[in-house]
């Protein structure tokens, strides 16, 4: 097959992926409300966006939950990976299976099961329960990013530190942790983005009074999305793009050295 055809095909597939996003971004600059008609360039949806308390509040909740959930999941998950790595084969296998359960569970079942838990234990659903739910689905991803780094580590590194007089605690802080750091960072970033994007699990574990962006969009979707949302998603898209490029640059720098 000729090169031209291959490239043409790839371009078409990418076009399919990007057209809705481009449309969405263009709409955010449209002066009118219509989704199909261009009524001139305007930043007025952006202005409205920053003046909308419900969107700003949802943004605040989304970002703080993503940050907190990523931080907590990274600590628990990294410790768990180190602990599991030190286990003998059988308990490690059991823990790995348990780790895989939430990853294979459909989001909707995870969300509903947590909702049942919170209702059953009479914990009012809101910010706190949403945070717990996000930590829960993030931890396995942290473990799965840290585990390979632990396995890659020279298995004598830890012993070498002990041999040179380091106590186990010192060896953990100064030898194991720095070696798995790239995995820890990957896990944290993955958690952050998963949390930022989550809808299904948040939907079941929060109350209508505490909305993150996804649940807010969902509740508005029926009434018809306002162009302010387009403005917000355009902004978030650009922010995430910058973040992704920074991470990628970091990764390629790490590969080069």
């Amino acid at each position: 097959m000729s090169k031209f055809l291959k490239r043409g095909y790839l371009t078409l597939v990418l076009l399919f992926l990007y057209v809705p996003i481009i449309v969405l971004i263009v709409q955010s600059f449209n002066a009118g409300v219509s989704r199909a008609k261009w009524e001139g360039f305007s930043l007025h949806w952006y202005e409205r966006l920053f003046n909308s308390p419900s969107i700003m509040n949802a943004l605040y909740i989304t970002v703080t939950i993503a940050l907190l959930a990523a931080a907590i999941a990274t600590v628990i998950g990294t410790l768990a990976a180190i602990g599991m790595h030190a286990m003998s084969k059988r308990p490690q296998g059991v823990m790995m299976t348990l780790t895989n359960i939430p990853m294979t569970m459909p989001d909707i079942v995870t969300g509903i099961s947590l909702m049942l838990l919170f209702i059953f234990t009479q914990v009012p659903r809101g910010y706190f329960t949403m945070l717990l739910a996000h930590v829960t689905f993030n931890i396995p991803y942290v473990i799965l990013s840290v585990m390979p780094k632990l396995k890659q580590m020279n298995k004598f590194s830890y012993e070498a530190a002990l041999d040179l007089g380091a106590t186990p605690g010192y060896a953990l802080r100064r030898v194991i942790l720095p070696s798995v750091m790239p995995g820890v960072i990957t896990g944290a970033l993955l958690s952050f983005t998963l949390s930022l994007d989550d809808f299904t699990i948040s939907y079941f574990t929060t109350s209508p009074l505490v909305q993150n962006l996804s649940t807010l969009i969902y509740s508005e979707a029926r009434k018809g999305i306002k162009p302010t949302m387009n403005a917000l998603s355009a902004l978030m898209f650009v922010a995430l793009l910058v973040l992704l490029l920074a991470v990628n640059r970091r990764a390629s720098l790490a590969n080069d050295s």
Partner: protein
Amino acid sequence: MNNMALPPWATWVMLLGFLGFIGMIALSIRRNRGVKRSLFAFPYGLWIVLFTLIPLLLIAYYAFTNKAGGLTLDNFKTFWDSNYEMRKQMLDLGVNPADLGIARGNVNVDTLVYSLWMAFMCTVICLVMGYPAALFMADRSFKLGATLVILFIIPMWMNFLLRTIAWMSLLEDNGLINTLLAAMGLPKMRLMYNSQAVLLGMVYNYLPFMVFPIYNSLSKQDRRLSEAAMDLGANAALTFLRVTLPLSLPGVVSGITMVFMPSVTTFFIPRVLGGGNTEMFGDLIERTFLSADNWNVGSALSLIMMILILISLTLLRKADPEGEGSGTL
């Protein structure tokens, strides 16, 4: 935030557990007594029990009990016959439901079959679209491969609800496509609120999950293998069929897993693009729980879905024992 309040006991338990754990580690490090490293997995173990195992047990509990808390299989019977409860009550009152024209309700089963069919179609379309894309990206004469991977990832960074809603503005009766058609003097088309629109939304959302694992297994392939095949006299097509394709099958299996699993439980897309004419199993579960407020039947439906997913996962794992290509994101 008004609803942030958590019950006092939860605060205390959390705080005590956390402080206790930190204290334990600090103490054992201070004392130079080797901390047993496997203990580090303890908080996670606790977390799994509290937030994964107990919630799952709750689902199982509700699935096998009735509203009064007694053991029953009625919830699963309701899956098979959505009129089961009604018919049972009628029989209790001595009325034959058939006399009133109330037969077996097949809504639930039909929804499941429809979901499986949609997921299957979505997987097939993703495979047909995604395999060539992955193959061309992995082509070594094509230097942009790595950049293209990023280009495939970027759309996934946009909120999935918004991405789906964005299709609305393209497909609506007064949407972009119809406006274009009208401008060209062509009749408008009804593009939304049907199965095809839902399928389009699903393919759009899940296509990258098919492309990545296949790309991964293709780009890992030793190029000398295909060179060897050519050296042994196979032409390009034969080399692909006999060497490249079979060696990429683990990636294909991962891709199928990663597309099929979320497809079956698709939630929200049918509501936006199908406009409620096309309910899928995820929506049915949500509706049963929240609108119908029937936790017992909802739990039974969730359980059925989980079992279905476990079965298909086991089958797929058999085809790809090493789990290659999974976790490629």
